[in-house]
């Protein structure tokens, strides 16, 4: 029994170190927001919004601005209605283009922050979600 316990104690850190990421699709969203709402929140108060959203699972809906493909599968999507204030999502698993709706989309992902700076030449601001998954309406 002692040997068994020792084996478990020794194996646990190794298992933890080699573990992948949990599936976002299996997790519940901490926030459900529109694309406008979350971008505006960061534009209004980046510090407060960072504390609220970063590392949390956020479900966002809005119009598709652009999708990116790799090997025929969709790997990321940008959600925006004005091309400047954007929610940019990378998918945890590549998605079949046929399963992407034509205009409006809802995705859930881990918020990694906001890129937007008045001093930058890049206009607008971008909220980024990683390990996203598509939500079927």
């Amino acid at each position, binding site marked *: 029994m002692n040997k068994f316990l020792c084996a478990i104690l020794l194996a646990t850190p190794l298992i933890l*170190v*080699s573990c992948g990421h949990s599936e976002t699709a299996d997790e519940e969203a901490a926030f459900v927001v529109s694309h406008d709402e979350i971008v505006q929140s960061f534009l209004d108060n980046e510090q407060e919004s960072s504390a609220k959203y*970063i590392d949390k699972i956020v479900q966002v809906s809005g119009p598709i601005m652009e999708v*990116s493909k790799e090997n025929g599968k969709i790997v990321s999507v940008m959600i925006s209605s004005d091309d400047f204030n*954007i929610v940019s999502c990378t998918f945890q698993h590549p998605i079949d283009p046929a399963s992407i709706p034509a205009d409006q989309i809802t995705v859930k992902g881990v918020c990694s*922050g906001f*890129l937007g700076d008045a001093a*930058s*030449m890049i206009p607008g601001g*971008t909220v980024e979600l990683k390990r996203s998954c598509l939500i079927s309406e």
Partner: protein
Amino acid sequence: MKKFILAFLAVFSLAQFSNAQERYFTREGNVNFFSATPVENIDADNKKLQSVVDLASGAFEFAALIKSFEFEKALMEEHFNENYMESNTHPKATFRGKIENLDDLKAKGYPSDAIAKAKGTMTIHGVDKEVELPAHLVKDGENYKVTCKFTVNPEDYKIAIPNAVRDKIAKEIEVSVDAVLNPMK
């Protein structure tokens, strides 16, 4: 007075438009970092690099969120953010500078074998450092492809590596930037 304001706005808009005409950008560039040691290789990708070049002035910049780097192993990603990069305090890495030899590149038609000397300020972990990056800026149809490889020494940016893991993290981290810049409309 009204005429003056209208004339000013027209000139200002024209200036903005002509600036945009010379600017090329992306919000979907790739940045990868690779740390190689005999003990372990660490590899992470961020596919959301933002980058822009102004071909009128030579201004060139890129920016990436630290938390958008994705690792295969969850615990490695957590350590990277919490213990080394302290990404809650320093969420972004940026480079802002200028391509010094832009006229030469322009004259040659931005060939793939020419080096674009990008000189400017790299900010990582809240620390600014003056650097010169050897980039390639290649015309590709109506777009420009930018690639750049450089090394980052964590000590230069006050990134503390604990003794316990020092042999698992390379002294020089290899960073690769790869982006297709589209005309800014």
